[in-house]
């Protein structure tokens, strides 16, 4: 049991780290496309790790199933949303940041 607890704590901590760093990235990165990357990290790595960490603490199998369903949905929708957003932004002509450009 101790092993599970430690693993869960590690996973949760890692997840929290990814989530916050993604959040900082969303605020600090210079243009839209890099920010998509930052947001993507929170949705995939951050969310996945946190949910895994919770999964190791589930009291019952129903809760576990629900956590898995959430993971599945987030895994499907997160990257899709990022991709579609970036695609649409590119088509709409949102400019790409190059070294030396001002931040937008």
């Amino acid at each position, binding site marked *: 049991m101790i092993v599970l607890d430690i693993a869960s704590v590690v996973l949760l901590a890692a997840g929290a780290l990814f989530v916050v760093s993604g959040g900082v990235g969303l605020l600090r990165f210079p243009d839209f496309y890099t920010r998509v990357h930052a947001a993507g990290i929170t949705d995939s790595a951050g969310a996945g790790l946190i949910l895994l960490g919770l999964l190791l603490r589930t009291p019952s199998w129903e809760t576990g199933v629900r956590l898995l369903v959430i993971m599945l*949905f987030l895994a*499907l*929708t997160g990257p*899709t949303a990022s*991709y*579609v957003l970036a*695609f649409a932004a590119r088509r709409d002509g949102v400019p790409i940041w190059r070294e030396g450009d001002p931040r937008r």
Partner: protein
Amino acid sequence: MTVFTLINISLLAILVATALTVSRLRALYEAAMLSALFSLVTACLFVLLDAVDVAFTEAAVGVGISTVLLLGGLALTRSREAVTPRRRRLPGAAVAILAGGTLVYASQDLPAFGSADSPVQRHPLTDTYLHQSQEDIGIPNTVTSVLASYRGLDTLGELLVVFTAGVAVLALLGPLAHPVDARRRDDLDLVDYRVLRVISAMLMPFILLFALYVLFHGDFGPGGGFQAGVIFAAGFVLYGLVFGLDKAQQVVPRVVLWALIPFGLLLYLGVGVVNMLLGGSFLDYDTLSSDPAAGQHLGILLVESAIGITVAAVMTTVFFSFANRRATR
């Protein structure tokens, strides 16, 4: 408890910030999106208050359907707010300040937050709903008992409100108001998004399954007819958004949709009338079976399904009316 308070305070701060921004933004699409965010935060607060059903509804309605409908409505008009002269903003500001002031004034004599001694807690109503309902109705989720049985008429009324909204949209925006003209252009920009199409197609069965789960699980956990109906509608809307209106209307023809709107309402009403014919009063589900609790179960199930049908049909119709209107201009 302090953690709880801190979380509450930070969520409230986020809520206030969002509200202020929404009121300051001129760009209406952005404002609509931020109001979805507002709903998300509100729903989180409801979760923390343990009002799970309310949070569920807020999430389904506030984030899902109302964002979609707001955007659909905006797509029909202009997307930037016109500048209101300062002079004409004064009455609104005065009303807001007065109303807010009265709220603050009133809050001084409201029972303390979470107080176990508040009039609401002391009234026999609460006790009856929480304990007696287990005997009378036997459904673990008291909210469902109150909603569908004790105050079933209110729920019928709310369903009628949804129905009215549907009729109003049909009358003012729907194809009945503006017969579809021939030079219809289908501007489906999302058809190019292959990934989106594949993922949406994959998600569709899950969404519908989840809606059914919410409908029938309402007795035990959060959920019920309204939420299920909205989730169904969200599924259809997603399908229509990604695959185009024509395809969506092949799946659910308009005529069927329009028949389902009154059908749900009539089903609800029918349950009540059957109760009357069986010698009870309107919506007295006890009469449906020799065992009152079994009758209550059956009645609540029928009623929740009726709600789900009408809500789903109305929401889908409203969205399709908006979208059709745009496609035909």
